[in-house]
């Protein structure tokens, strides 16, 4: 599903440069649910951004679903992002002037679907995250948990192969966090491949595999016994 070999990335800081990723090797199979852990500055978000094609590696190989991701034009990157990836962000990143339904329908718009079809699909996904009655509410009329669920519905709308979540519970309280994790676990149960960046142990333990990063290298890569989130709700 996902294959990364000898990935390097550095950022220029003034005259010098900061070496953030120092040779990452990682492969993820379909249906996995992987937590990428590490303290801040460990490079975990950078890794996720490269996987998400929001950023490009300096060197190394990245193959996603059999496609080598390298030297992409903006247009190609946009198409791949749309087709392969679904993003869930810590700060939700909903478009504030669009209601829940329109937010969910946005990736479908860029897929070129007809409006009617788009709205039907978006409504279906909203229903899946239990927010059908809130379809016509603006983001600022929703709670944090609801916003994140809208974001999840949006990430799912384009039916991506890989779901990338960057601290999906970072802005939520524990109870809501677990609700969201429960939901993400269900998605994984249905077969979605999911990558979660987090620095919270309990969230990481709800995944099936934990990859620990430190100073740009993988320290530890272990499979864990999944803790079901609903037990904690």
């Amino acid at each position: 599903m996902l294959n990364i070999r000898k990935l390097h990335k550095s950022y220029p800081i003034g005259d010098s440069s900061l070496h953030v990723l120092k040779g990452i090797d990682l492969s993820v199979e379909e249906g996995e649910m992987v937590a990428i852990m590490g303290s801040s500055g460990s490079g975990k978000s950078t890794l996720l951004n490269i996987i998400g094609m929001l950023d490009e590696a300096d060197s190394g190989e990245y193959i996603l679903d059999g496609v080598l991701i390298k030297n992409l034009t903006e247009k190609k990157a946009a198409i791949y992002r749309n087709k392969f990836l679904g993003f869930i962000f810590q700060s939700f990143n909903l478009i504030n002037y669009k209601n829940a339904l329109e937010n969910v329908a946005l990736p479908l718009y860029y897929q070129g679907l007809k409006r009617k079809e788009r709205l039907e699909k978006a409504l279906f996904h909203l229903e899946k995250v239990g927010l059908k009655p809130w379809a016509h509410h603006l983001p600022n009329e929703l709670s944090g948990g609801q916003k994140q669920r809208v974001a999840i519905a949006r990430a799912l709308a384009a039916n991506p192969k890989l779901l990338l979540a960057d601290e999906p519970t970072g802005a939520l309280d524990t109870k809501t966090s677990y609700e969201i994790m429960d939901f993400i676990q269900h998605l994984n149960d249905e077969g979605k491949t999911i990558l979660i960046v987090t620095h919270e142990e309990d969230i990481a333990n709800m995944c099936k595999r934990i990859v620990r990063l430190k100073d740009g290298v993988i320290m530890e890569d272990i499979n864990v016994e999944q803790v079901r989130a609903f037990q904690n709700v």
Partner: protein
Amino acid sequence: MFDLDLWREIFQSINKNRTRTVLSGFTVAFAILLFAILFGMANGLSNTFSNAFVDDANNAIFIYTGTTSKAYKGYQAGRQIRLKNEDLDYVKKTYGDKIQYYTGRVTRNVNASFENEKNSYGMRAVHPDHQYLENTKITEGRYINKIDIENKTKVIVIGRLVEEDLFAKTTAIGKYLNLDGIQYKVVGIFKDDGGDNEERMIYTPISTTQRLYGNNDYLDQINVTYNPKMSYDEAIDFGNQITKDLKERFSVDPTDQRAIRIMNMAQANKGTNQITFALSVIIIIIGFGTLIAGIVGISNIMIFVVKERTKEIGIRKALGAPPKAIISIILLESILITTIAGYFGLVLGMGILDWIGPSLETYFITDPKVSTSLVIGATITLIVAGSIAGYFPAKKASKIKPIVALRDN
């Protein structure tokens, strides 16, 4: 290619950011408003200048005579110079192609009466061409014609106000009007943009007057129009040539300013034209300055818009928006705001011109209007301006890296 969804996106963005839209729209509308008003005023000014001469054909040359002020070739000073029919023929023959219309003119004051109504009017005895020289507009009947001249018929063409004064509610055509005891048949009614005095005038065949009053062939004036193909300078030279030739013909000292005089419209028009031209250059500079200020204004606002929407653009890109979609959204928004606001400003400007236009006549501004071609030109300029104003910000927006956009919270 019309993409309904794209427009829906744009309208949503415009609608959800009303303050921003109104502000940027205001900039453009105001610029166009000023542009329209300035242009209208300039047009009004040049209208005033050209209107000052509507009374007569603007290529007319009037030739008068007086008494000599200098002794010359054995003649005493103080000699009366008189134009005659033969002088008109001479002018006609000598200058040929250079002259378009020609007429002699004898002026008199007459007491007119019809039934119980009486009044005194100016009467001009003329040739048929006089109609074109004086810009006389026949509203009913006909003007003096060649047959009238040949037969010395007692016919008159009267001004609109003469008919109003004397004939009250009935039509004057075909009626006989008594002028100083002689009955003339009214064959035509005219109007003239030269004002009330011109419309209280009576025209009659020159030959009729010459026979009835003194049985001579004297002319008070010879009026001609020069060939309109001539430039102002050529026409001025032509006028000087006529003066020179006539002075020689009448044995008048070439430096005598009183015996033969000429009023050449080319001279006046040349001055007017220069003023109007200078005015329009100034106005164009000011107008386009305003327009450019408007474009810069909206461009600034669009740059701000892109900055403000950086995150949104980042989100869209993360969701798979290609650069083209981002460019379209910013560019079309800019074009749409510019065009609608600009059009609004234009209509408002034209409305203001219409509204205050009549009260500006005291300030030498007549009928300040913006021409249709200018409106079309301005609309195209607006669309182009909107594109220019939107393009650079849009290009910048399309280059936003989603990662950068999403990071700045």
